[in-house]
């Protein structure tokens, strides 16, 4: 009788632990800049949807670095593990998005104030050094070589396609298999 009770308690604890782990791991969020929801567990599979950062996902399975997930609007597919996390990301408002266009990338447009929108509009037209940095350089007597160097750094543009192609050629991440 005592052994039976012990077994029941053990099974109950075991069952609770399994359920707790399952519940704790069942939700993920897209934490990278974006993530593709794929029909299969490979980059060559069809893309079901392009998921935005912060999208909540329910996990159904995990195989070889890919999660099978479903979205809140009912889409299902596979997402590469490097794009998601168990922690909901903080989405900052009014930040300059990198759209592969150097500093000309524009702000997120996530509902910031009118002041932030104005700042975004002015930032969009900037190429190279900002007017404020130019004023700082003039006031401090920064050598032209340093100004040109920063101008050159800020003018460099790398496209999203170039980044993906780079990872693919190196067999990195989702291109590893």
């Amino acid at each position, binding site marked *: 009788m005592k052994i039976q009770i012990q077994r029941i308690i053990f099974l109950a604890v075991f069952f609770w632990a399994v359920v707790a782990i399952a519940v704790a791991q069942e939700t993920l969020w897209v934490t990278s800049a974006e993530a593709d929801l794929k029909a299969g567990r490979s980059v060559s599979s069809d893309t079901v949807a392009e998921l935005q950062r912060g999208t909540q996902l329910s996990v159904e399975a995990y195989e070889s670095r890919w999660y099978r997930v479903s979205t809140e609007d009912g889409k299902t597919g596979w997402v590469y593990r490097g794009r998601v996390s168990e922690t909901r990301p903080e989405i900052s408002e009014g930040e300059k*998005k990198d759209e592969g266009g150097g500093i000309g990338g524009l702000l997120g447009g996530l509902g910031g104030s009118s002041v932030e929108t104005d*700042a975004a509009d*002015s*930032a969009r037209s900037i190429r190279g050094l900002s007017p*404020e*940095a130019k004023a700082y350089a003039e006031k401090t007597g920064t050598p032209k070589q340093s*100004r040109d*160097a920063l101008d050159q*750094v800020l003018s460099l543009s790398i496209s999203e396609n170039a980044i993906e192609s780079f990872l693919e050629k190196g067999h990195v*991440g989702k291109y590893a298999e």
Partner: protein
Amino acid sequence: MTKQSNDRNPTSRRQFLKLAAPLALSLTTPVYAMDLFKALDPKGKNEDVQKAKQAVEGLGSIVQSAKGIDYETEFTIGESLALEGFQRYGLPVEDKKLQDYVNTLGKAVAKNSLRPDIAYYFVVVQSPLYNAFACPGGIVFVSSQLVRSMDDEAELACVLAHEVGHVSHKHALHAIRRAKFFEGVGKIGTISMDSEEGRKYRSMIGDLQSVLFDKGLDKNMEFEADKAGMEFAYRTGYDPRGMIRVLEMLEANKDSATIKGSWFSTHPPVDARLERCRQHLALYRDASAMATVKDRFLDYRKRL
């Protein structure tokens, strides 16, 4: 004296009650508080109301500096620091292919960082020091000597991700959050470099140089950036042990390296960082199966 105090008290109490509501309200919605001040004193002639209004405006600035600095200001601080960085550490290596390579890798890891929504810029500068640092807003410097001493792309990915980690966590801004500049307007778009605010701004950049180029950030920020370096590189698909290999390389070279202004003087002791990174590695059970991309890295390293 006592009489005078008693006489003043009822007025003060009335003033306090009159101003308490907008003050309290201002903590949550400063715009409404300003409307309320306007309703109380439409012509702006009541000295007490105007003083309270100024106090609330000042409070707004403090709240802003505590909550965070707007991105435009953050980026301009980064640009100003970068201008100083070129003078202190050297100019960019003149090789567009190499700079493109480092930028592509850096942007790839930054996409999997805690702060992927901003633009990051990476530059290899001609310098004999083992060094890398991140300016606020996302301009990352890495020295030619540090790149030359690495052996594969995973190592470089981890170093760039370490610097992205500093930007993600806004470590440099945290270090200067008490600067006098933030007690005033605290927003770059509103100041002239010739004004008093401009002087405070330049003083703040001086302080930031001292932190990033000489004294170094708080050691816990560095440990946090090491973890971030491993995490962002791993999430991108790189071997997180790259971080450990770089630290081991630094440890092996520390006796012959120039210390001042390098990672040795601005970061915690390498052995303490190694110990923490090795502990952190336990999280990545398949680390050995992740990419190192040695051949491509060595092709670019040859260019230095």
